[in-house]
């Protein structure tokens, strides 16, 4: 997809999202909030997977840290949202800096395994550190600012935060740094002898990805009025990876499509059966076997074949 068509898609999406609260369905509004948050989360992982070429299986850790920290700062320290949310994102970024510094030394599967290990460590801490996190029961009852208590207002807030984050990621992906990320994905050695400090750039990418994941986590904790340990579990990380793969890694908008479809499918299928994981497994198999470039790749193929006729 060209830059222009991706921007047109994003603009159209934004217009549709502006209209959603006026459609009169509270269910739709709330569902859209969740879809936006998961889209943001998938976009953040794609900085690593799609741009730099590092597959993290522990991305949920930063989603969870962002969520728990927001919950803690808002409820226990009773900080205003304008301070609590940035602080939560900063905290997650600092964790990412430390974890990332160790992880980016490794390649491919070893990188994936180490990120998985660290995320399970975070999950373990969340389970055990009951006084702060609430342990198994989760952090229940977040003191949300008054203006966010109506679903409408929360929708606007989420739309604003997700849009700004998406815009920032777009700018990043088109910047020199974004190009350097792609250069690293294509060939580390080549980027290296052109003067790129590959490890350092990978670490920067890792922290940026975690930062936006923490924003998503922060929104999710406020939406749910609580945060739960499953948000850091490896299945959550897997879910994000599948979203990205389903949408297509080598385009900016792909993860939005993937996350949206996957979440909507999950919600729909849950109404009929409890075997959602089975369906998700099938989706993963289909993506890997016949849609290596995800939905975006499928659309591209359809588009070219229609044009040929």
């Amino acid at each position, binding site marked *: 997809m060209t830059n222009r068509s991706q921007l047109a898609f994003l603009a159209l999406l934004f217009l549709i999202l502006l209209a959603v609260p006026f459609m009169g369905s509270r269910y739709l509004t709330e569902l859209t909030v969740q879809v936006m948050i998961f889209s943001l989360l998938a976009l953040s992982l794609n900085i690593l997977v799609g741009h730099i070429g590092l597959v993290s299986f522990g991305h949920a850790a930063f989603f969870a840290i962002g969520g728990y920290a927001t919950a803690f700062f808002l409820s226990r320290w009773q900080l205003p949202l304008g301070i609590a949310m940035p602080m939560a994102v900063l905290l997650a970024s600092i964790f990412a800096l430390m974890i990332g510094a160790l992880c980016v030394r490794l390649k491919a599967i070893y990188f994936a395994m180490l990120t998985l290990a660290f995320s399970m460590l975070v999950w373990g801490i969340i389970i055990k550190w009951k006084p702060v996190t609430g342990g198994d029961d989760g952090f229940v009852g977040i003191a949300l600012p008054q203006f966010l208590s109506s679903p409408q207002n929360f929708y606007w807030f989420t739309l604003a935060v997700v849009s700004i984050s998406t815009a920032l990621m777009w700018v990043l992906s088109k910047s*020199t740094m974004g*190009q*350097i990320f*792609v*250069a690293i994905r*294509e*060939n580390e*050695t*080549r*980027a*290296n*002898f*052109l*003067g*790129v*400090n*590959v490890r350092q750039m990978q670490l920067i990418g890792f922290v940026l990805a975690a930062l936006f994941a923490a924003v998503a986590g922060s929104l999710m904790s406020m939406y749910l009025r609580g945060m739960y340990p499953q948000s850091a579990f490896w299945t959550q990380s897997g879910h994000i990876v599948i979203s990205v793969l389903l949408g297509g890694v*080598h385009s900016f908008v792909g993860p939005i499509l993937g996350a949206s479809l996957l979440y909507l499918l999950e919600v729909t299928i849950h109404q009929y059966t409890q075997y959602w994981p089975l369906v998700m497994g099938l989706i993963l198999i289909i993506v890997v076997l016949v849609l290596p470039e995800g939905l975006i790749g499928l659309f591209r193929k359809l588009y070219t074949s229609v044009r040929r006729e």
Partner: protein
Amino acid sequence: MTMFSASIWEESSMGILQVEGINVSYGLSKVLHNVSLKVGKGELVALVGRNGVGKSTTMRAIMGITPSSSGQILWKNRPITKRASHLNARDGLGYVPEERRVFGSLTVWENLDVARRPPREGLEPWTEERVFALFPDLEHFLTRPAGLLSGGQQQMLTIARTLMGNPELILLDEPSEGVAPLIVAQIGKKIRELRDTGVSIIMAEQNLDFVLNLSDRCYVLEKGMIVYHGTAAELRDNEEVQNRYLHI
């Protein structure tokens, strides 16, 4: 057996790069034996030899991509033997790999942008305008993914990309390999233009005519060793060396 001719190295031109007895192994097999060479400021030095004699490995060792196990590499009289290649690139060594290794999914402009480094004292800085003045073809394809360019254009792009780093020494690995004869002549012309800007160049090549037309001095490699060293004129007249080490 070495056949060094005398008087070929003028000590007055202080070498900016000195390679002193480096050895490189891939696993158990040793591919470079005690290789020494020098490049002077503004000089165009060629490494010649048949396929697989260690020309590329020498270039990669200088650049820090395949570090040498012993010996020493001096860059402006400072040792850089085991330094990481990104630091070498930032310090003025510009490597142009063989086989036109562009970033295929980045556009031409993005390929250049990735390699951009600050200008260097004493050398005119490379800007896009200056790069396009040297390689006018590239300007027409600014927004095209580099993977869709022709072989010759990709070769031009790998050179142009390295120039964006404002190198003081360019390491050109097999610039004439796998491109059409007409393009080879064009690339030769560009390399001469580059040398005229005052930049030092070290070039690995199999194409003897190409080398003799362009270079100031030549090192002949055979089985990972330097077996002859002389000016281009001396090598042109030395049929024995040509027959023994260079002709197929």
